């Protein structure tokens, strides 16, 4: 077993999906299943047999890349990225499993795999150029998927998504290059390493602009409310697997970027940015919840639910104290699981009834009780019922937010009421009432149960015993706070 420790697991994790994608093109879609299985094994083994080389990291790998510009392939894994890597791999498995009966072209699976490689790169990269490249890799394949396999308005939706996120990521590249040049001029050491760039002295008149570029790029990806224009259409038109990855993982990349890239690079600007973020987060919670309440299309409804929940995570980040941050980081995982399950269920309901309009659905419980029970279960999780996973994150976020600014916590609590309003409306529209739609419907199949069962288990686990994961996150969160204090961002 000693040999295992020497395997550069992080690099393997990154390259495996790309090899898998190539294999898909050669051997057909079966290769994707094998890749997912291998990837899961590697991801699960990550925390074991580690020899810490560089301090905060569980694992750290560093390879030369473009030596001339000081860009290296450096990958670091700590508690937070571990959780997100797990989330990515789980959701990839769900996405592949959910698409299996529906999409036969191996290209679809190849694109999913490539995107997954990009996502993992974003969560692991410690080099800004690598981060940027991965950032683009994670999105473009999904946009292609929407444009090729999406719903009726797929091209329009894909274009909208492309425009918004490309504008964002170009701004990000601009900020990175600016930093790169500044740092190079100051120290003579031209490097893209995140750690090195954090020490750059940024002129006071330039800092807000560079930070603004970065923040915009990340907030578009989350998205928070004024920047969410791409979201409803993209989520609605995309194939279920893509929606699930977009909301489950890509949104997390935005928050992750804010905390792990924007904060360390601009600690001083960060503190003055927090109130803005808090305000935007509260608007997202309220606005997203309100709009979710009036939607008639089930998938669009869940899309807005996702906006509201991401608002909570942003609120936790804005509060920026131990409790709120731990809650927010935990919620990244929780929300990914719940929202993915909800989008999967929407797809399953649609496959059975051929319909997604709330007023044409109803009475599903009497036709397919097991599917109905799953819809109810995950809706309750989304509603924030204590004992299920969303509550765990939400209460920590709210406790922390109240500590930072009492009225943030109080206003956030109102979002919890909104959550009950839209979720129960959805449940009532889908489950209760007299049965409609086709006379005969298959209840949940074994494959579907295999996909959703583990997700339900995770919902309960994180709801009732989140302790191991909170411990996992404590280190990274304390480092973030300590970093901000030492760099003078916090008084």
């Amino acid at each position: 077993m000693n040999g295992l420790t020497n395997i550069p697991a992080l690099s393997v994790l990154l390259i495996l999906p790309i090899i898998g994608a190539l294999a898909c093109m050669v051997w057909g879609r079966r290769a994707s299943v094998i890749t997912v299985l291998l990837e899961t094994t590697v991801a699960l083994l990550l925390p074991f047999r580690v020899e810490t080389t560089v301090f905060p990291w569980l694992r750290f790998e560093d390879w030369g890349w473009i030596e001339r510009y000081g860009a290296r392939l450096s990958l670091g894994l700590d508690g937070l990225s571990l959780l997100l890597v797990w989330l990515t791999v789980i959701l990839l498995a769900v996405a592949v499993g959910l698409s299996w009966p529906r999409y036969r072209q191996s290209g679809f699976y190849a694109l999913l795999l490539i995107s997954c490689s990009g996502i993992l790169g974003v969560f692991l990269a410690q080099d800004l150029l690598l981060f940027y490249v991965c950032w683009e890799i994670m999105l473009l394949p999904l946009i292609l998927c929407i444009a090729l396999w999406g719903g009726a308005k797929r091209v329009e939706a894909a274009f909208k998504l492309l425009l918004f996120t490309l504008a964002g990521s170009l701004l990000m590249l601009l900020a990175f290059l600016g930093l790169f040049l500044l740092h190079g001029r100051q120290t003579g050491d031209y490097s893209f390493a995140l750690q090195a760039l954090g020490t750059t002295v940024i002129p006071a008149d330039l800092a807000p602009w560079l930070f603004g570029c970065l923040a915009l790029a990340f907030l578009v990806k989350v998205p928070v409310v004024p920047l969410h224009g791409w979201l409803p259409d993209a989520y609605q038109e995309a194939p279920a697997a893509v929606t699930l990855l977009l909301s489950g993982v890509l949104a997390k990349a935005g928050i992750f970027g804010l905390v792990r890239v924007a904060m360390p690079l601009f600690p001083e600007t960060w503190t003055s940015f927090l109130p803005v973020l808090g305000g935007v987060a509260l608007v997202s919670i309220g606005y997203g919840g309100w709009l979710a309440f009036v939607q008639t299309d089930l998938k669009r409804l869940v899309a807005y639910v996702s906006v509201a929940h991401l608002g909570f995570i942003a609120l936790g980040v804005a509060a920026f104290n131990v409790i709120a941050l731990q809650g927010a980081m935990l919620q990244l995982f929780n929300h990914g699981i719940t929202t993915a399950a909800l989008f999967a269920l929407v797809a399953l309901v649609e496959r059975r009834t051929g319909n997604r309009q709330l007023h044409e659905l109803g009475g599903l419980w009497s036709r397919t009780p097991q599917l109905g029970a799953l819809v109810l279960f995950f809706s309750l999780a989304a509603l924030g019922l204590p004992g299920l996973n969303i509550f765990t994150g939400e209460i920590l976020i709210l406790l922390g937010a109240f500590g930072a600014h009492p009225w943030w916590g109080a206003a956030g609590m109102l979002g919890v009421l909104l959550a009950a309003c839209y979720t129960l409306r959805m449940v009532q529209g889908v489950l209760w009432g007299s049965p409609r739609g086709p006379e005969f419907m298959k209840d949940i199949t074994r494959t579907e149960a295999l996909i959703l069962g583990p997700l339900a288990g995770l919902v309960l686990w994180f709801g009732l015993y989140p302790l191991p994961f909170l411990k996992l996150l404590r280190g990274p969160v304390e480092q973030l706070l300590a970093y901000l204090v030492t760099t003078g961002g916090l008084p």
Partner: protein
Amino acid sequence: MTEFLFLIPLLPLCGALIILFAGGRMPRRLLTGVAIASVAASAAVTLWLWPLAADQSRATLFTWFDAGSLQVPMELLFSPLAACMALMVTGVSALIHVYAACYLHHDPDIRRFFMLFNLFVFAMLVIVLADNLLLLFLGWEGVGFCSYALIGFWYRNPVFATAGRKAFLVTRAADVLFGIALLWLFHLTGTLSITAINLQAASLPPASVTILALLLLAGACGKSAQLPFSSWLPDAMAGPTPVSALIHAATMVTAGVYLLCRLFPLISLSPTALAVIGLVGTSTAFYGATCALVQRDIKKVLAYSTISQVGYMFLAVGAGTITGAMFHLLTHAFFKALLFMVAGAVIHLASGEQDLFRLGRLPKRSPMLFWLLLAGSVALAGVPLTSGFFSKDAILAACFARQTLWWTSLGVAGLITAFLTALYALRLVYLLTADREAASGHGPAPRGLVWPLLPLGALALVGGLLNLPEVWGGHAGLGRWLATPSGLSPSHGLEWGLAFVTLLLVAGAWFAIRNRYRVPTSPVSERPCVDFLIAGWKFDSLIRFAITAPFERLGSELERSLERGFTTSWPAGLGRLCQATGQKLRVFTSGSVSHYLVAMGWGIILLLAMLLFLLIF
């Protein structure tokens, strides 16, 4: 030994899980057996561990949350107060489970019913036993969910499902305020343990304590259907009758009172908050009684009556007597659960008819049920020597013993409400016994529906012995057990006076009702004031007009205007910008060779100039 405390809530949970995972393969008898046995076992364990309560035993299972300064253990506290409540919850639940097994024996979906019913008992016991506010909140929302799912149990009827949703949303609205109190308490004290908060309460700033107490009151009002959150309870009667008996009469609706009792050391620091609690209690009691007086649906009479009786418990908390509140809570659980189950049996016999003016002849059809109804009604009416008489008088005595204008006037309002209570309780009896052409029933009540009521009937009559005041030769047993002195000791003269006044009121009510309903009557003519009362003072339409409708309308308006801008106009603008830029740049690739040649020429000149520049400098 203390670890066994976890058996109390976990046994019903196990029952629910067994039914959930294996219920589909079980015969019906086994399934109901599992459900009943798990709750009965829980009651037995409560009795077995009863001695532990005297020294406030605790048991910890594991840590739920640990983040920064926040520590939330899964910890139970078995105090005398919790023990009383736990025994009542498990005992009454066990009886109602037996009743439900008979009541629903034709329903095809009893698996779902008993799963939720057991889960409810679990969640309720978590509320009762939790020491940590967050754990209590778990139970609090858990009972809310079970109530939601059970009100809408017959989900094919959208009206029932809507009633369930309303119950959940109204209580959730109140829970927002409760939640804010919770956040604030943690912010101020750094802990969420109820014991620790109560210990630190004295050191908190008084203004915060008042606001905190009011926020907690709001949360309690939601669960306990007090004004202004009362409107969900009458609608909740859409659920099967055992649900109404267990959740909406005996246990869940009293959770608010129990919460205030648990946090009483904190709340009692603010006289303003106590005065407001008293006011809310009295006005709700009066409101509920006036509405119950004119209802035609037998279950709605009982629903409004529950609202009204829980109001008395709030009044007791406000007046500062935990013993009084708990005493009334217990007796009310007995007689109201009894009344609901009698009503269920009556409805069952009349094949689903719930209109009081179409029911009747109960003594002839089922004498046993009639006597049980009578026992419940006299206890509700507060006829001297029944349980309701003692518990209600204890509350009113505490009000008058305060000897301030505020509490005396609340006490007088309580007396007026007591008169109204006697009126509607006796009206119920007279209407059910009236000799009219009733909807034809079928046979006597099944034995399974009757025998669980017998113990409750007995308790409704003699439950007063639990806390018999010393004036009547008792030992105030409950008060001693709870050991929460209120600092008030009503004089003997006051107690005798109150007993006499109550007797007069009940007698007056009896005469009034006898004259009105002795001969079978038809429903009252549709007078506007009766309509107003039947509709619960039209609070529903007010809320719809002021809150729900604008919320929906504004939401759709937002969707049409602002959201359209975000998702359509703005991206389209961005798209057009890109397109226009492209169009502008297109002139460079016009396709005619002469343009390209000119551009090439300029390029060469530029390059040469740069080269020259570099050579010279």
